[in-house]
């Protein structure tokens, strides 16, 4: 409650103002749908710039949204079901490592850690929400190495910008800030393979498990396909190559997406994205976008993309726009599609917008917790 002349606490008021602003500047870096038995979208896991990983129940968000219409808050301040203070810096990615009953929730962040929690421990939580944070110990904690420079100076810990998984071989692939991708063994917690070759830090990584390959996108403007057995780069995709005519526009590969059959690849660089057919190694199309794409995902034969504008754009495989849906975050960093077709867009402002398969907004909430 705000103060008045009868009980004025200036510091508390200032604190609340700053807190409000902090919430506004928070960014959701990744949203992931939790595996559900019913096949309906039940809960969503959100990794945000304050290093927190929190799961929200869609059903309760929707119900609160409806009952809370007369409220003064225009946006729903959602309370998470489970809250983990996962990382010291921003948390960049969350993934579910599906291993039967023993599903793991993996996250990586700016502090160079990859941590894993047992998902059923998170769902069966009994602790009240205000006590949560570090109440569940991660079952797994992998950390990137620091480099020693001249005279033994330690470099900053490289961050992990994205992770990918291979459940069959039990490995986790991470796109690290030291321009290398790593393959971690889940059992031993050791690095199995280092993929070295990019000249700037990695933004994104996807695993192509059918042929045991990974694909990485980097700040240096290229994407590479690697063979996991040998650790060698099989193919260098340089979207900017054909585009040299563009006047000196430096761009990086900020996101890549692979379809379910693992044969189509979408790769965004700067203000355009290109589609490749992997089996044929063919360049299919190139599409210019108004803003730089920050996350893409395949949904059936279509590509959903979000960028630095408040729109969720649906492209077909040739890159023509099928639809644009207004979404809440002004700059979206993440789009996640549930098998049922429900999409979640997360981005600047700590906002998560859940959009149904028909394009209507199921609920929009911001992660206010802490």
């Amino acid at each position: 409650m705000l103060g008045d002349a009868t009980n004025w606490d200036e510091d508390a008021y200032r604190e609340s103002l700053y807190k409000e602003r902090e919430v506004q500047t928070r960014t959701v870096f990744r949203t992931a749908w939790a595996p559900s038995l019913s096949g309906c979208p039940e809960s969503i896991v959100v990794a945000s710039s304050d290093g927190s990983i929190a799961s929200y129940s869609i059903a309760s968000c929707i119900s609160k949204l409806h009952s809370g219409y007369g409220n003064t808050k225009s946006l729903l301040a959602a309370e998470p079901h489970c809250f983990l203070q996962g990382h010291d810096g921003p948390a960049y990615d969350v993934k579910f490592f599906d291993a039967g009953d023993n599903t793991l929730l993996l996250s990586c962040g700016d502090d160079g850690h990859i941590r894993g929690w047992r998902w059923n421990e998170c769902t069966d939580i009994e602790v009240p929400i205000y006590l949560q944070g570090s109440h569940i110990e991660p079952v797994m904690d992998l950390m990137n190495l620091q480099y020693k420079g001249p005279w033994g100076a330690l470099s900053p810990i490289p961050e992990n910008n994205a992770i990918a998984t291979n459940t069959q071989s039990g490995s986790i692939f991470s796109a690290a800030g030291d321009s290398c991708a790593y393959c971690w063994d889940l059992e031993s917690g050791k690095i199995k393979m280092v993929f070295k070759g990019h000249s700037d830090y990695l933004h994104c990584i996807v695993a192509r498990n059918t042929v045991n390959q990974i694909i990485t996108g980097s700040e240096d403007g290229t994407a590479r396909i690697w063979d996991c057995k040998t650790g060698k780069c099989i193919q260098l995709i340089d979207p900017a190559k054909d585009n040299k005519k563009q006047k000196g526009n430096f761009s990086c590969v900020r996101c890549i997406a692979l379809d379910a059959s693992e044969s189509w690849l979408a790769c965004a660089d700067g203000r355009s994205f290109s589609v490749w057919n992997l089996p044929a190694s063919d360049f299919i199309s190139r599409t210019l976008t108004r803003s730089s794409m920050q996350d893409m995902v395949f949904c059936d034969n279509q590509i959903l993309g979000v960028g630095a504008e408040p729109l969720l754009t649906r492209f077909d495989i040739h890159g023509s726009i099928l639809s644009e849906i207004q979404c809440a975050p002004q700059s979206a960093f993440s789009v996640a599609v549930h098998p049922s077709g429900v999409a979640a867009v997360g981005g600047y402002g700590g906002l998560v917008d859940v959009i149904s398969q028909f394009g209507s907004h199921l609920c929009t909430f911001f992660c206010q917790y802490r």
Partner: protein
Amino acid sequence: MDEEIEEGMLIEDETEPPPQESETGKISPYEMLRESKSSVEEIVTKMLSIKKHGEPKTQLRELVTQMFLHFVTLRQANRSILLEEDRVKAETERAKAPVDFTTLQLNNLMYEKSHYVKAIKACKDFKSKYPDIELVSEDEFFRDAPEDIKNSIRSKDSAHNLMLQRLDYELFQRKELCKRRDELEQHKKSLLEVIANRKKFLSSLPSHLKSLKKASLPVQNQLGMLQTKKLKQHQLAELLPPPLYVIYSQFLAQKEAFGENIELEIVGSVKDAQAFARHQANKDAGASTNVESSKLEDDAPDEDDDGQRRRKRPKKIPAKVNIEHAGIYQVHPLKIILHIYDNETCEPKSMKLLSLKFECLSKLNIICVGIEGSHEGPENNILCNLFPDDTGLELPHQSAKLVVRETLSFSDKRTSRPYKWAQHLAGIDFLPELPPLVSAQESASGETVRSDIVSGLSMYRQQNRIQTVVQRLRSRKKAQLALVEQLDSLEKLKWPVLTCDNVPWASHKPSCSLQGWSLVGYATSQESSLNIMEKEKVRDPLDVDMLGKSGISREDIDGAREDGELPALVSSTSILDNAQPTPLRTPNLEHSKQLTLISKSITPQTNYSRMLSFSKHDEDYELMLDVDSDQDEPMQTELAADDVASIPSNDITRKTWMDYGSKEYCLVMTRNTDSPAKNLKLQAKIKISMEYPLRPPFFTLNLYTINSEENRDESDDSDWYNELRAMEAEVNLHILNMLPLDQENYILSHQICCLEMLFNYCINEASRSSERKKSSFVIDVGLCKPVSGSIHARSFRGRDRRKMISWKDIECAPGYPC
């Protein structure tokens, strides 16, 4: 027959007592009777037997004579018995008379005896009067009584004599006392006379003193002792309505107890105030007539003796009319003026910061505050939002809202407004809502009321309301002065100069040029309490704006959209509005015009009635005005569409009070880069709210590239979006935590300097990275093994390609690694 009778008689005779004189020589008549009877019986038996045997009747003759003889003796015996009886009777009669006489004598004697006994008892029961008389004790009597009483002998019985003596003594004493009482009465009467004389003298004294006081006034003014003025103020204070009195007394107490650097003054005429109070009392008593009130006014003691008041007297009549007809805005004739001085300067005469005028709208029972002598618009009114959510546009409490009902406008014309903090200062929260005289009359219920007030006042003091408000006012005024200073310097397009040197941007030398600084507008409530009609109009320009910035015309987008979701979204709101019945539109427009002026309090009421009739279509309206509704929710999809459409507008409504009185400025800084030759323009929209510096200015950044040859601005927003947001976060939030508290009033300057430094840094980095690209330096990141033998420190990091900024020695904000 005969025989039978005889027989019966005989039987009777036999039962008679036997003769007692049987032993005596003479045969008793009874025996004679018995003998004759038996002989008769014998003869009868003989006669019977003769008759039976049939013997000759001669014998019978003999027998009959015998029998007659016997009968004669029988009769003789009978007569002698009767005679005897008579004799006994007469004897008894003779004996009875003496017996009767003695009985009578006995009774007489008994009666006499009881009479004497009664008389004795009555004598014994007789009570004397003397036990009721309180007498002095015997010892005392012997000690004190005069000799002649002691020696007098009235009776032979010594005890009785003593008693008589004591009674005499008592009588003597009482007579003495009566005499004394008479004397004292006399004395009292004479004293009363003296007192009356002296009173007469006293009543004539005030007029003397008054003339003396009048004579002393010039001397007082000369010597600077404003005793009279102070007295007058106190006298005026007594006429203040309770809320103003609380303000006055509490401020005075604060000033005297803590040496607060403030001055208080009550202005207004005593006459008017008295008339007002009387009028109020009369009206409540239900007997208010013009004649009476004017008479009362004449009765008012003539205590106004300085010329100023006298000059005001002709105004009296209109003032009275005001009282009658001013309606709900009726202002109490007395007002308090509060001067607040700077408390930090050590000079004896410190600078005056503010003068506030408190007035009381007695009908509404609210306190209004304005800045004395200022007629600036509400946007410049620095009293608003002194505390959160206090624009002063709405009435502070419910009862007032009920009284007003419709036509309230604390419009821009009024310079004094009912801020909530003013009500808190006046203690309206615990004062009873009654005019002063009435509450004074009701002494019965007055006790509880008084105790309420006492506890309320102690709470008031505990909460330090006066101190809090004065502190806030001072800091607000100082901040505003500092702000004006900063704005002036920016107006002249000079970079602000910072006096604090332990923040990195203070020592930074600006290399951008400050190209523009302009006031964009006021974000007043007029704009924010949008009506529905304008909502979409506002939205659309926004859209155009956004698209325009990204350099793609609207037509292109529409083409690309086909029949996708977004157009449907935008049109859905307009469809909703169009679907509203047309009669709604016109009243709506009028209403909304009013609504912008009228306080929010009224909105729900007017809106509610409409809501009942057009509940479905008013869905949007409802959202905007934040009315609680229990209406059925429409279909989910429709809702979802509404939801997004209403997000921005709803947001605005929610923040109305925060925006109230805030100003928006536009700052433009440009920077030329050599490679590639570009002219970058950073535009910052700065919203400075009334709560500055508590709520720091809010920056919204846009970046443009100016192509020198085409001279056309091109938005670079989407490329730079994340960098701009990071800069915003840094300027709006993170650097605030690093600022020392004494620099608070100069937050704006700090923010601008910091922004310039960040902008500079960003551009340098950008040009460096593009350079790098061009010259095809292959460099590795971090300190990992170089691919081509050169070491380069990273400048970007993370998925949002954040610049790695670290402030030396200062802890970073969470989420931003150092």
